[in-house]
């Protein structure tokens, strides 16, 4: 008789693996990536390609240097490179995604032990690093998308949609009409452009539709917990509704909050990162609501027009604490009455 394996139960495992999960997440980002190429042309392909290739390359290099097993075929570095690129303004120079990817995979991920051990989302941390290091490039590198202009508003070419909401009076200029500008912005055609993507913004964030397609794929395959996008987007909606803001026409205004900026990209693809979000269902609610509150606070009263990436980073840091206070309920902890 041949040698029998003797190991502990269970003796069978569910299909699926970390590698499969990661590559499915990559697949879910393909529509948004394809959209970025459509809207911003070969530049988008070049920047994304550089981001992905350098993330994989630096990941492998770091693993080799640290004497770890090289596991770049698990797809996680591809996700990091892809997400970073999709979070970049389209006009940044070619080396920005390369430097960003290096920071993301070497410093944020491998320095802390590799996949599963980083405490903040590598792509978002790299974006924050790039914003503070090259603020000019990272906050002004906007381009008009194919078939549209930067703001989505006719005649306004110098600001992204959320920047228009935030700084209407400056954009309208001295003697201009900020209220008219807001009225123009908060109209259904503009919301339609935000939804379909012919507005300015980061490479991957312009088309809510394409992000939603990937997001629905992740929900249907149960790769992400619905609580995070639902809690996050729901909180943004509710707060935008009840808090004072540059409201002109309510529904289009809410449309700006949901479809403008990085909320879709953040809520479906970045706040849902397993490694850096809470592990229990209750914890995920807390996390999602926290992300939503911070995002709206930054958008309405913060120093930036957009707050998705900082909100998620802050909540990433709060994750161990959330985990601590949202443990699952132990079976039999509450002694029930018999009979």
């Amino acid at each position, binding site marked *: *008789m*041949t040698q*029998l*394996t*003797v*190991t*502990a*139960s*269970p*003796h*069978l*495992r*569910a299909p*699926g*693996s*970390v590698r*499969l*999960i990661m590559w499915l997440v990559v697949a879910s980002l393909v529509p948004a990536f394809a959209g970025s190429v459509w809207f911003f042309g070969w530049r988008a392909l070049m920047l994304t390609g550089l981001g992905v290739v350098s993330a994989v390359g630096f990941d492998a290099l770091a693993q080799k240097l640290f004497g770890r097993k090289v*596991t770049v075929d*698990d797809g996680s570095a591809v996700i990091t490179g892809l997400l970073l690129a999709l979070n970049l303004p389209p006009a940044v120079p070619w080396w920005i995604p390369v430097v960003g990817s290096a920071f993301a995979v070497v410093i944020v991920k491998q320095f802390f*032990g*590799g*996949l*599963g*051990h980083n405490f903040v989302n590598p792509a978002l941390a790299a974006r924050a690093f790039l914003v503070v290091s090259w603020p000019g490039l990272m906050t002004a590198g906007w381009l008009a998308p194919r078939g549209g202009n930067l703001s989505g508003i006719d005649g306004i070419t110098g600001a992204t949609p959320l920047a228009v909401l935030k700084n209407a009076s400056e954009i309208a200029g001295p003697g201009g009409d900020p209220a008219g500008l807001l009225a123009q912005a908060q109209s259904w055609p503009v919301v339609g452009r935000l939804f379909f993507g012919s507005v300015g913004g980061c490479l991957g964030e312009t088309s809510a539709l394409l992000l939603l397609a990937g997001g629905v794929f992740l929900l249907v395959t149960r790769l992400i*917990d619905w609580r995070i996008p639902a809690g996050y987007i729901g909180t943004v909606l509710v707060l935008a509704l009840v808090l004072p803001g540059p409201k002109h026409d309510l529904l289009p205004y809410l449309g700006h909050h949901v479809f403008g900026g990085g909320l879709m990209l953040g809520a479906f693809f970045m706040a849902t990162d*397993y*490694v850096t*979000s809470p*592990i*229990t*269902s209750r914890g995920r609610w807390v996390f999602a609501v926290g992300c939503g509150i911070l995002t709206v606070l930054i958008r309405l009263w913060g120093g930036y027009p957009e707050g998705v990436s900082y909100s998620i980073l802050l909540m990433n840091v709060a994750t161990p604490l959330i*985990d601590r206070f949202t*443990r*699952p*309920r*132990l*079976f*039999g*902890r*509450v*002694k*029930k009455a*018999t*009979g």
Partner: protein
Amino acid sequence: MLSFRGGVHPSENKHSTRHLAVETLPLPPVVFVPMSQHIGAPAKPVVEKGAEVRTGTVIGEAQGRVSVPVHAPLSGTVTGVTEMPHPLAGNRVMTVVIESDGKDTPDTGIGERAADDFTPEQRIEAVRAAGVVGMGGATFPTFFKLSPPKEKRIDTLLINGCECEPFLTADHRVMLEQPAEVVDGALLIARALGVENLIIGVEDNKPDAVETLRRILPSVSDGAQPCSIRILALKTLYPQGAEKQLIKACLNREVPSGGLPMDVGCVVQNVGTAVAVRDAVRFGRPLIERVTTVTGPAITEPKNLRVRIGTPVKALVDYCGGYRAAPAKLIMGGPMMGIAVASDEIPVLKGTSGVLALDADTAAELEDHDCIRCGRCIKACPMGLAPQRLYYHILRKRLEAAERDHVLDCIECGCCAWTCPAKIRLVHHFKFAKSEINARKRRAG
């Protein structure tokens, strides 16, 4: 749908044997009968080499409070009383070897009795003397569960017909082929316990068993019902047949952490055990055979077999046409909680609910990956534990922290490890931690 929280649904894989009637394996030429086939103190051999025994003769006497006697599974000559490695635990245990005389002559003590006139004490003694243990796999002495301390009022007897382990169909066939015996045995236990409710819980992937039991009910309970009887179809979800989960599903009662079913007024017995109790009480027939499923991708012709305790597993496999492919893993029990063994020369025990042979493909040890915190283990854990957290504690050798996070509540069902995409051997780590913590406790007195 009646169920519990958590759990997983692995491929059931019961199709190859669920429709096959139980076949009786011919008497083996020799049986190996370990004195430890139950939880508790091993029995002490009371026969010597050369002794002639009949089928059902006591060959090992119970030692201590939690222990049961062991009987000769067939008639013949004792050819050895020696220490052998325990088939599952690996520690050395006294084992009686009997060579069959081929006659299967029953012991004089076996025969029909006026069981309906028995007092509860007489019933329980009959169960003890017959060496009946939990046949679902846990092998806890049945008589002990039937004699709860006075202060624990037991109102409900649950008969476990879930058979939630993939591949196994032995209990399913018992319910289909011996429904009257199952119900009769259950009623005997119910009367011994004096309960008001009797519930037979069956997973809803066995609607034929639910149907059969419901149909047989009126004819068995003959109007003199000692209690209300219900047959409940439960959601097909692993581990629906785990004691605490079954109680939760059927009665919505939670056994307190560290407690026993009797703490919530319940006793749980497997369907096979109910039949064994009937045999013991009505006929004085000891537990010397059981139904087991021989199955898995490496078995040529999977079957449900009625086999004598002590029969070498190899004889079962041979009867099923041998191995179709070189077996890579041989498991006593099901794939989720069964125990992998090193050889097919080990004997069938009272708790052997199945023999599962995996081929090289299905048994492949998967490479593990660092945890990515996906949270699936937490969703799957039917005990409400955080396996990922426990795993981190154990990796860092923080056993006190693991204990504080209730690792001792782990029932080792395997849901977490089954669902883990990083293929981490979570149960392996938890078994280690539990045995270490328990050993430290024993040392500390």
